[in-house]
């Protein structure tokens, strides 16, 4: 395993025309850790995710994935890095002209895998993981919002990424569907030890993922037992953006017990 952090941002800044979106953002996230990105609407959370994926280039600073700076890389040079990463967009961003099967198989076809049987086997495997195998032949327009996001998770899982980025995965969903998405995030984190960055405005989701683990036996989230050792807890960090900069970063305890008035306001 590489000693470098899985994701590291150093003094990243970005402006759109005259509007400053990010200024001097720095943080590092170790392999297997989960980072919850918090902040009000328009604080730059989604932009930060796109920077980590190399979909946007910062005006200044470095974005390092497993120690490699992706800022100077061309679109073609970014592909090997992106292969190790997956991003789930806010609304799923499924290709609406392709079926669920073709959406999930997309990356395999792009990599010129010709063995149809192997493609189907792998697609079924990841769709089964997110409990969407039955919807394999449906079109995205036939799926609910929650189902679309589960298919989007399956689509990113197809190449076994070691880093997953989630942009408001439960935004706009009812609590039951939102919970099912959290189960998938925890499942990937706990079963495949994926490094995760989750943009969310639902603190409840962050607490749930910080204090619950996925039980393969019960196929749902179960609470960590009281007094469980720190090593058995998910490595979870919280980072809050405000006015384009990092306003807070720390663990759940530091976040929850912070006396800072702005954080208190956010927590209530």
């Amino acid at each position, binding site marked *: 395993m590489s000693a470098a952090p899985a994701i590291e941002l150093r003094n990243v800044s970005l402006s759109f025309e005259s509007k400053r979106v990010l200024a001097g953002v720095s943080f590092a996230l170790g392999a297997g850790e989960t980072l919850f990105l918090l902040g009000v609407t328009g604080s730059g959370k989604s932009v930060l995710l796109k920077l980590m994926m190399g979909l946007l280039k910062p005006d200044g600073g470095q974005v390092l994935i497993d120690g490699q700076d992706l800022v100077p890389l061309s679109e*073609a040079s970014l592909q090997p890095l992106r292969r190790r990463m997956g991003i789930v*967009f*806010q609304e799923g*961003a499924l290709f*609406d002209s392709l079926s669920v099967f073709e959406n999930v198989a997309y990356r395999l076809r792009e990599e010129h895998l010709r063995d149809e049987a192997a493609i189907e086997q792998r697609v079924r495997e990841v769709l089964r993981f997110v409990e969407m195998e039955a919807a394999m032949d449906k079109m995205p327009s036939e799926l609910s919002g929650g189902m679309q996001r589960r298919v989007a998770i399956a689509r990113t899982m197809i190449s076994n990424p070691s880093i997953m980025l989630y942009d408001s995965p439960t935004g706009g969903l009812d609590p039951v569907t939102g919970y099912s998405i959290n189960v998938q995030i925890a499942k990937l984190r706990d079963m495949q030890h994926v490094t995760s960055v989750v943009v969310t405005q639902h603190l409840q989701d962050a607490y749930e993922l910080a204090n619950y683990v996925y039980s393969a036996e019960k196929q749902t989230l179960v609470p960590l037992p009281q007094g469980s050792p720190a090593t058995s807890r998910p490595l979870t960090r919280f980072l809050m953006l405000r006015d384009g900069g990092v306003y807070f970063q720390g663990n759940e305890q530091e976040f929850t017990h912070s006396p800072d008035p702005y954080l208190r306001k956010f927590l209530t």
Partner: protein
Amino acid sequence: MISAMITGVLKRWVQNVQEFTLLLVDAVRQAFTPPRYLVDTLMQMDSIGFGSLPIVVLIGFFTGGILALQAYREMSVFGEVGLMGELVALALVLELGPVLTALMMAGRNSTGIASEIGSMVVSEQVDAMRALGTDPLRKLVIPRLVATAVTLPLLTILADFCGLLGGYFVSYMTVRLSTAQYWTSAYQSLSYKDVFQGLLKPFVFAIVISMMGCYEGLHTTGGTEGVGRATTRAMVVASVLIIVADFFITKFLMAIGFY
């Protein structure tokens, strides 16, 4: 205040020209290197080319008919109705065939391309595509550019032929011009240089139509409202550029002594 606004508008305009040029250069450069999306290109040829057949046939036929009607009105005064075939052929092959077909294609395909790609941009499908290892330039832009560049000259030939048919139909119905006289006059009036010019123009117009649709689509912002704006802009700018390019191609060919 006003000068700042003018400067801002000019800067944006220059930036748009620069970005459009870069997109065009990248598309042309990368069209010759793998990976290529042959299936996507064929699907675009079907949609852009075959899908445009009915309007091209109708527009071509009636344009030729109108030309013959107008020509008859003037030529009958001088007793030169026998030259109707020549007039229809030259007007169609040199100007009206390429320009009208391109304008129809701009209305149908620049808008279609801009709205399709624009919708993909605002729903983050283009970002998802990039995240999944696909270069949108190769997957979305180049197939549309190649498909339009191949099909528009062919559609123009068809429009020219349908126009000649329309002209013949009107000539026969109005002055009972004989079939031999009409077609011989039309055929003999055209030189290879005319045909070359008539095929060079649609090739250039195809680049304008496809690239303007792609450019506006890829630069769509502002949700579904933005898609509408991009679609309108693609149609308007492509139409204006077709007429401007037509003028400059004609002028250029004259300047180099092509005629």
